[in-house]
């Protein structure tokens, strides 16, 4: 596979490490009433879509960027690659 890194251009997937669902960015608030339930879902529950999937890749053999890659799990087509930090900020990660 080839991942089109927003800063570095197309790179071979062998340079990256895969983590998983980009929902891992959405870490719950530890002080919420139902924090335990939320963290349980955050830790253990994943969608497993046959189709478009947003997922986290780490450019370990490169610039150490975490990326959010939108990949079709059926065709491996990659339709979007974003810097994970930008995504996290856009999703309202505060600190």
């Amino acid at each position, binding site marked *: *596979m*080839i991942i089109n890194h927003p800063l570095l251009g197309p790179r*071979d*997937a062998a340079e990256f*490490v895969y*983590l998983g669902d980009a929902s*891992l*960015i959405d*870490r*719950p608030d*530890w*002080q919420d009433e139902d*924090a*335990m339930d939320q*963290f*349980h879902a*955050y*830790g253990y529950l994943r969608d497993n879509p046959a189709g478009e999937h947003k997922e*986290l890749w*780490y450019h*370990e053999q490169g610039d*150490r*960027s*975490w990326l959010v890659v939108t990949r079709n799990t059926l*065709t*491996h*087509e*990659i339709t979007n690659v974003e810097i*994970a*930090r930008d*995504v*996290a*900020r856009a999703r309202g*990660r*505060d*600190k």
Partner: protein
Amino acid sequence: MSQAGRIDGGLIDRSQQIKFRFNGKWMRGFAGDTLASALLANGQLLVGRSFKYHRPRGVFTAGSEEPNALVQLRDGAHQEPNTRATMVELFDGLAATSQNHRGSLEYDLLAVNDLVSPFLSAGFYYKTFMWPKAFWEKLYEPVIRAAAGLGKLSMQNDPDAYDKGFLHCDLLVIGAGPSGLMAALTAARSGARIILADEDFRPGGRLNAETLEVAGMSGADWAAQAVAELSNMPNVRLMTRTTVYGAYDHGVYGALERCTDHLADSGGKPRQVLWRIFSKRAVLAAGATERPIAFGNNDRPGTMLAGAVRTYANRYGVTPGQQVAVFTNNDDGWRTAADLQAKGVNVPVVIDSRDKPATLNLPGVKHIAGEAVMDTVGRKGLKSITLTNGKVIPVDALAVSGGWNPNVHLTCHQRGRPTWRDDLCAFVPGGELPVGMTVAGAANGSMTLASALAEGHAEAAAQLKDIGFKAKKSDIPDAEDEPRDCAAFWHVGESKKRAWVDLQNDVTVKDIKLANTEGFRSVELLKRYTTMGMATDQGKTSNIAGLAILAEEAGKTIPEVGTTIFRPPYTPVPIGALAGRARGKDFRPYRLTPSHKWAEENGASFVTVGNWLRAEWYTRDGEKGWRDSVDREARMTRQSVGICDVTTLGKIDIQGKDAGAFLDKVYSNTFSTLPVGKVRYGLMLREDGICYDDGTTARMDENHYVMTTTTANAVLVFRRLEFARQCLWPNMDVHLISTTDGWAQFAVAGPNSRNLLRKVIDAEHDISNEAFPFMACGNITVCGGVPARLFRISFSGELAYEIAVPARYGNSMMGVLNEAGAEFDAVPYGTEALGVMRIEKGHATANELNGQTTALNIGLGKMVSQKKECIGQVLSQRPEMNRDDAIKLMGFRPVDRTRKLIAGSHFLNKHDPADMDHDQGWMTSVAYSPNLGHHIGLGFIKEGHARKGEIVRAVSPVHGVEMDVEIVSAHFVDPEGERLRG
């Protein structure tokens, strides 16, 4: 042996004679021959024995689809089994032997299998070798393995070199037949960067095998001209002997180039190169493969595909026989008769299953329409054929054509499903093709020459346009569209004898019918039950006939039955090529500590820790075993001082205004409150509340921390911190860099450690207990100005320091420390003594932080701060993980002090049975303590401290050992921690 099978013409160089050996017998061929063509030229029809029945077999095809002619090539360690003789270029001195027979090829003792064939039908393993169960592993399987099968491995190391490489291009053209050459010419002339790859050593594909004309010259001449043009263009990489074996994601292709397989000696060059080709676009021009028709005894040597007979006659100047009959269900088979006749070979008869007039008018060739061959005679070489009308015709070779299958393999590698075309009686590429791929020529069902040329041009032009190149208006050379009518005629129903569908796996028509009868009706099941289409040829000649027969039996159409699809590789890829240079010590690179050289010079032996080689102990004169060395090192360190290279621990430099706040998030305990110049032990949790990693982190400055991780997790922790920094807390001002390799770090431990360091550290730095107490850290200089860092931390439990210098000083620092320590009898110590001392002190490491244990379990429950947010904080509060009877880390010692503890033993109460229901915990780490004089252990046991003093059983059923042990504190040495503060 004379070359009795040699006829006129061909693309061989008769001025270059080549000598080779087959089964020890010397033969001759010419430059340009394959092993198969040379064997046929020498009249060697019998080349191997079949997989199951050990039937005599001969060359069947002229290409990579060959199911029969598998040979063992070369001698000694260089030998390679299962090599297709049809793909082996002849070279001087080549040695080949036939496979899969006991005794000689001519008199194979296992041919008895053929006589008992009624018992060896599809699924015979499952039916016959069921009972008794124990016999399978001991008796049946070894016997079957010895009897059935392919070639043998040399059982020696492969002495050849293999390489891997990367290539990039605008357009990859796969296959250099008419459509591939045309696509390549079109693309090359447009200026695009192209790669043209073909598995053959001579580009041209069928053009080299046919007598068809292109642009008024022979097809082979036109191909040579095209190749000459392409070879001179700087934007073209022409790769012969290169099989594109797989189509992967995003235009990436795998290719195997056979660089020196055609040479007697590789001369030290890589034998094969595995290429990863990155293409913007690709044109698949892989051509088509002819398929046989199944009829009784259709596997005899001398029976060959009609197109292959043509290849041997036209390209190699070889005929498999002097009286060659043709049996066809299509127009194409007729050209074999015509070409052979033109070369002076007698073709007595063309049997055409179709009831229609002759395709070609060939005087002297008898045309028998609407009949078929139903049996043959001649065990080791064809003698006659018997037709469905009862007629017996004496022949010494039979050319069979059942039509052609487009080579759709690579179109399926992304799960594209081929679609059926009735007019071709074949599957053509269908469904979603791999990204960027289009298909041209026969591979796409354009089976005739003019259409293949036109399509090669058109597909390349369309692909180029997509990527911004403009194809010049190339003239498509003149050629004809030859007749290509084909009947859906798969097997001869009148045959009473066994009729082979898959020659390589000995699968017959009867086997397929049986599979259907027994309920294996899906193609996938059929394949697995009968083994049809498996092994090295992957059913290239057999699959479609098998499907057709299944469809017929099931009363369905072929599209209804469907087809299996293909996955890489197209043809076998040697493991050596996949490994490339990654063998032996290069299989897994290892790292050396900065003091490796010093350690080597001072008697160290080494152990692999993660990727590192670390000194495990240093052997001194007179020490008889490792225990002597380890005991001495541990004892001397506690008595005086010891020195250990601890560079392998991960070091992460953390800077920024929010560095402290960031550490509070990733560690379970608090670091923002740590004063500058101090170190703190930190415990990291996983998000699920389980312990992840631990280490010490020093605050060097207001906004500057230095973290250490365990050796094994150095990379993972860094990755995780980057994740936390970028994805979880993206607005924090914090920056990370790994400095594991930047600093050489040494533990200096023992009561004399301060005295030793005093001699090394420059005088202006005060390291007295008052100025530099336990858990202090700071920047210092050593040896007259070399920058260094000093940390007063202790893993051994002694008064101890870790001192870090830039890595380039590491080896000499180790020397300096040991020289300075000579007056204190300082010892260098390795990982074993390190381990002994940490067990004596009750420190947890990977054995305890094993991915199942919590902070509470290891006795650090209070370290998980409830006042702040951190990774793992919330889920660590789950009730099940905080039960009153949770396991706790404790120390254990044998009641009989002479006994040796066993790590992994489980604890059981005195009279309980040894089962998991009564399990109380397990022993994680054990060591002989030279300071206590007996074995000690760490382990987890339910309720922990409350049971101090209790005697339990430590049971290891694996070792058959059971003993009584006493539960004690995990701190065997200096439980109050007075030494490390002294």
